């Protein structure tokens, strides 16, 4: 192939409506460029081999090579008016191809770069985003992915080729020619929808609860807690010594749930006495309320949750009586977690099942002192983008941080060591989430999921 500089090839179905919409609602547009958080390829000529650290991304039909690219989009506000994938062919002989490949969305965004092989590859199962014809060596190409990347979140793109003379692109390991996702968004006025913010595993003798309480000072809305409100034993004096001076100043707008440390005091009397009616009927620990278009249920994972138990029966009746189109629930012990300290609590599954049966949308846990976001899942932990419930572990409210063990399937984002609060904006038919870090820290995670 010649070394001539290739023209920028642009493949796109221009989305006129998005551009028009942007013009009418946005004062200004912002463009942000993201590099992949993971990329790799698989090869059916070496089915057990992982190529995650390679500088190349191959696509070919003989031997079959497929490439996978993952981006995490964060910090984008307003509607996305344009998103394009930019990808660069390698500057080596043979990287050129008559067929640059077909680019498709993928539902699996939890694969890791150094574990994917031909044998265990994630399915390339989403909409076709575009395809590239002839590609030459050492050139940039673009694929319009506006239909897929609609806001903050994690996105996977799979690339295949029907040509036996495949193409080789530069991977994220290659530096300046790594793949890019260029996102243009308009700024929109802040919505007036209800804000629902909180964390679990909160107040102890350390300073973490002070840092997270300071975040609440600047965030309006209803405050939730996912248990272990105060350490070590949930006594009245610990509530007044540790919780009251920090999160306690937001008590009037707080709807808590109890954790195992709250139950170190027999019957969690310290918890029920401190929160009073805001914790629901005293001694029971489960209750519900509405916010805007949302029905919200606070549950108690320290008592029986079995199918047929009083709590599970109450939950099913409560959900059946709700007229709200969107539903959230929260409790302490996580059904889904990759934390190294506490294994998933399978005893909570009947509660998750009842919520799934009622088409609920969102569940938040605590217990492991860290942050983790899972894809929408069914009660067995299977990926379920149709009816699944998106879940979070939000145990970063103040207590000492925990590590992670083996990362579980469908885990999409994680952090330990950053205390913070998880802020939800509850729209009429969707919710936005945003991890808000303590002062001085930078980790964040945000996105949007639609209600069922």
């Amino acid at each position, binding site marked *: 192939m010649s070394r001539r500089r290739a023209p920028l090839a642009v493949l796109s179905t221009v989305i006129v409506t998005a551009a028009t919409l942007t013009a009418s609602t946005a004062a200004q547009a912002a463009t942000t460029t993201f590099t992949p958080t993971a990329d790799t390829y698989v090869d*059916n*000529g*070496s*089915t*057990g*081999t*992982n*190529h*995650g*650290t*390679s500088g190349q991304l191959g696509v070919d039909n003989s031997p079959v090579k497929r490439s996978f690219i993952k981006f995490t989009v964060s910090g984008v506000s307003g509607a996305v008016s344009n998103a394009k994938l930019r990808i660069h062919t390698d500057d080596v002989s043979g990287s050129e191809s008559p067929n640059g490949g077909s680019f498709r969305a993928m539902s*699996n965004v939890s*694969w*890791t*770069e*150094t*574990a994917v*092989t*031909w*044998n*265990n*590859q*994630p*399915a*390339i*199962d989403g909409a076709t985003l575009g395809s590239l014809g002839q590609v030459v060596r050492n050139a940039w190409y673009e694929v319009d992915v506006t239909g897929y990347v609609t806001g903050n979140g994690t996105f996977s793109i799979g690339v295949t080729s029907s040509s036996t003379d495949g193409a080789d692109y530069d991977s994220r390991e290659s530096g300046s020619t790594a793949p890019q996702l260029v996102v243009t968004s308009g700024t929109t006025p802040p919505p007036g929808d209800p804000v629902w913010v909180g964390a679990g595993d909160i107040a102890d003798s350390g300073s973490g609860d002070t840092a997270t309480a300071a975040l609440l000072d600047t965030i309006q809305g209803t405050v939730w807690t996912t248990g272990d409100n105060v350490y070590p034993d949930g006594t009245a004096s610990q509530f007044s010594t540790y919780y009251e001076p920090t999160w306690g100043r937001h008590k009037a707008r707080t709807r808590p749930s109890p954790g195992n440390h709250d139950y170190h005091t027999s019957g969690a009397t310290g918890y029920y006495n401190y929160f009073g009616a805001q914790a629901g009927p005293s001694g029971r620990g489960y209750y519900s309320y509405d916010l805007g278009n949302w029905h919200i249920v606070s549950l108690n994972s320290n008592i029986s949750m079995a199918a047929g138990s009083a709590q599970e029966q109450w939950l099913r009746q409560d959900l059946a009586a709700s007229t709200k189109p969107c539903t959230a629930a929260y409790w302490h012990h996580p059904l889904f977690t*990759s934390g*190294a*300290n*506490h*294994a998933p609590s*399978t005893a909570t599954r009947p509660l998750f099942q009842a919520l799934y049966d009622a088409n609920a949308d969102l569940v938040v846990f605590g217990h492991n002192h*860290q942050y*983790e976001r899972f894809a929408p899942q069914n009660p*067995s932990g*299977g990926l379920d983008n149709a009816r699944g419930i998106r879940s979070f572990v939000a145990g970063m409210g103040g207590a000492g941080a*925990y*590590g*992670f*063990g*083996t*990362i579980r399937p469908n885990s999409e*984002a*994680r*952090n*330990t*060591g*950053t205390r913070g609060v998880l802020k939800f904006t509850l729209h009429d038919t969707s919710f936005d989430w945003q991890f808000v870090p303590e002062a001085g820290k930078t*980790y964040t995670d945000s996105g949007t999921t639609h209600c069922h």
Partner: protein
Amino acid sequence: MDKRLIVTLAAAVLLGGVATGYTALSGAAPEDAARSVPAGAGPRLMVLSNGKLSTVSRSDPAGSREVTEQRCDRAYSAAGTISCLRPVGALKAGELAVLDSDLKELKTVPLTGFPNRTRVSASGRMVAWTLFVDGHSYAANGFSTSTGILDTKTGALVTSLEEFAVEGMPQRPVDTNYWGVTFTSDDNRFYATMSTGGHRYLLEGDFAARKVKPLGLDDVECPSLSPDGTRIAYKKAVDGDPQKGWRVSVLDLATRKVTELAETRSVDDQPAWVDDRTVAYGIQRDDGLNDVWAVPADGSGAPAVLVPEASSPAPIT
């Protein structure tokens, strides 16, 4: 032994492979696929790639890797014996699986707790493990561990080192915990950590005699004996306080001289010797992925990533 393990791991990949195409990941056990042994494969390192048993080339450990579908939360291997602490499943408690180099299951031992450490003696005969039973951190108060040893040759199984007599202590203190076994080359003596009264002593054990003997050295956790048998790499609590983290260090057994290695970050791992000059260990990132790092064993140099996105290193020799 190297070559055979490489070949047989590849064969296991072959058996565990897939021929059904695109949707291989959806959960079912993969079927089969053909592959050949990587050309020019030399000595390798076994690691876990997010819980999957894998191998990388010793000469290019950050390069491509062979990934099997065998799941372990912690693993080690020596001389064709693989110890794999399998995770707790939906319907099944955790267990130790002893595998041969074909990944054929030779023995399983049901275990309760969170997998934490495992080790195989250099000959491949002796296997040890440590699990957390209560609590899940060596820095916490009130945790307890369970440490056991299996002799794969005789089948002798010690489910808890607490069964062993403690030399110099007619009555073993009730707060005793053991963790982090490493074996000597005679397949009988071993080293481990014994914790009691807020101290974490190095002990020497005698499997046949069913006894352990504290060596009078405090703050030696998760010992790992060098291939030449002269030194122990371990984690040493900073200022004697595990809550402050651990410094990876090397103890010369003859002189009792302690050398702090060049890694200054906290290391909570049982180190592994890649060779007589190099100590490897895992460090977790904020997002829960781990990297295997290596640092010279004499205190010189600087730590460097040996295998990115991996944990539980073991040289396959």
